[in-house]
């Protein structure tokens, strides 16, 4: 399945939800915020947020800044 993550097209196998995606990318869910097709997904909805071909996902986190 093709999904665009942070602007890059990626091919994934056996990915069904945002939870699966974060697991595959080895990103602890509590350290990021996820936008799916420009809609923010709340952490308690990561499992129910299903991914389909062509989805646009943004995975954001806090970094140092002024």
């Amino acid at each position, binding site marked *: 399945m093709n999904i665009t993550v942070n*602007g890059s097209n*990626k091919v994934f196998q056996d990915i069904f939800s945002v939870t699966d995606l974060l697991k595959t*990318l080895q990103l602890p869910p509590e350290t990021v915020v996820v936008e799916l097709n420009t809609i923010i997904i709340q952490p308690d909805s990561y499992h129910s947020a299903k991914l389909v071909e062509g989805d646009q996902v943004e995975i*954001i*986190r*806090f*970094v*140092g*800044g*002024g």
Partner: protein
Amino acid sequence: MLTIAGTEFKSRLFLGTGKFSSSSVMADAIAASECQMVTVALRRVNLDNPEDDIMKALSVREYIFLPNTSGARNANEAIRLAHLARAASGSSWLKLEVTPDPRTLLPDPVETLLATEKLVKDGFIVLPYMNADPILALKLQDAGAAAVMPLGSPIGTNQGVLTDSMIAIIIEQARVPVVVDAGIGAPSHAAYAMEMGADAVLVNTAISIAGDPVAMAAAFAKAVEAGRTAFVAGMGQRSKQASASSPADGKLSSDLGFLA
């Protein structure tokens, strides 16, 4: 004590967390500054090289996080970042930053005002970064900004408070706290802003790129406290005319008269 949106701050120094050489230096510098509020930015995770989570280094103490909208070039981008920030932090504090020109990083006044109006309606505690424009400060506070953050000089330039005459008017007129943000390059700059009556200052580059960021953070803490104390104590007026510090009465009437 400084109060912003109902939250009391013992420290009038806010720190940015950018450009530190490591997370541990950053955490030590923030601790040395004794500040209670720190700014953070939001960026895409680099999927090829996910860095350490900055929040882990900052979790040892309870800081108030002030996420910024740096990178936003207009109101819509800032609003999108604001909502991401709230989802990530779980809090509504926001440093609104709209900078269309990467060369000057100067804030767009029109887009900043538009975004402030929208984000206040959306329930955010908005602290807008703004040029030192007294009229804009009034408009932002009327729009519901919890504080205003006029720049001393452009971000990261260490030029100090070049906008002092405008900031003096902003302070005189403001009904919300005034936080001088950007360009503060030395503890003396921070002290100067506080002596003028600023409610707080936000410092990042001057501390993070110092030879010893931890010592510099402590120096800024002292400077902010000294400046605030001087403001409260009441500063003398500037004068072009000399005014003797020693008494005029009982002066000797002629040169070397005491030898006669």
